[in-house]
């Protein structure tokens, strides 16, 4: 699964994207976050308060309860500041 990070999330993690090997027990975005938080303290810090984070699946706005699979592109970012 391709996972992308933007804005301060990218800065905190020190990367803009990565490939994650996901097993069958990763069914939702929440499951993916639980998996990512096992990586290190930076991930725990980023995902400690998900109310300040938005997520997309295949470039469509999504929620943390939405299903994901290995072929999806998932992105995490703070609320948008366009315009």
């Amino acid at each position, binding site marked *: 699964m391709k996972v992308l990070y933007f804005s301060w999330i990218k800065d905190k993690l020190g990367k803009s994207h990565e490939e994650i090997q996901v097993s069958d027990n990763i069914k939702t975005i929440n499951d993916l976050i639980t998996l990512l938080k096992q990586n290190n303290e930076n991930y725990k810090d980023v995902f400690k308060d998900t109310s300040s984070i938005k997520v997309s699946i295949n470039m469509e706005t999504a929620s943390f309860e939405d299903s994901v699979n290995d072929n999806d592109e998932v992105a995490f970012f703070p609320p*948008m*500041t*366009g315009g």
Partner: protein
Amino acid sequence: MIKVQEEDFSLTDEITFLKKRCNNIGALSTFIGIVRDKREDEKLVSMTLEHYPGMTEKMLNKIDTEALNRWDLLATTIIHRYGKLLPGEQIVLVITASKHRKEAIESCHFIIDWLKTKGPFWKYEKTVDKGFWVDAKSQDLDEELKWNN
């Protein structure tokens, strides 16, 4: 029509292009967003716009389609820049064209309100000695929500 680009745009050129795409225009409404020269009381050195290539085009097309569905419009132009911009530079352009003023003015306002909260852009502001990711404003979300009524 939507464009996501690093380079600057010309309002005059874009109005000329838009006029060529349709006829019987009775009203044009335009909005240009510009980089301010201050962050609160501090002098702003630059603003860098990060975006999500692919999703940006998708979202801008959705916003454009929504405006065309809600109002009787003859043409629209949305241009959003990304990359490093200096104070005074243009960030975003919205043009809406219709037969009568109400549709053009309302839809232009709608498009910029939705761009604020639905356009996948993130702004990084630099002052002389610091850098900040700009937080989304709750006021912008309120402005977006008012279009749901």
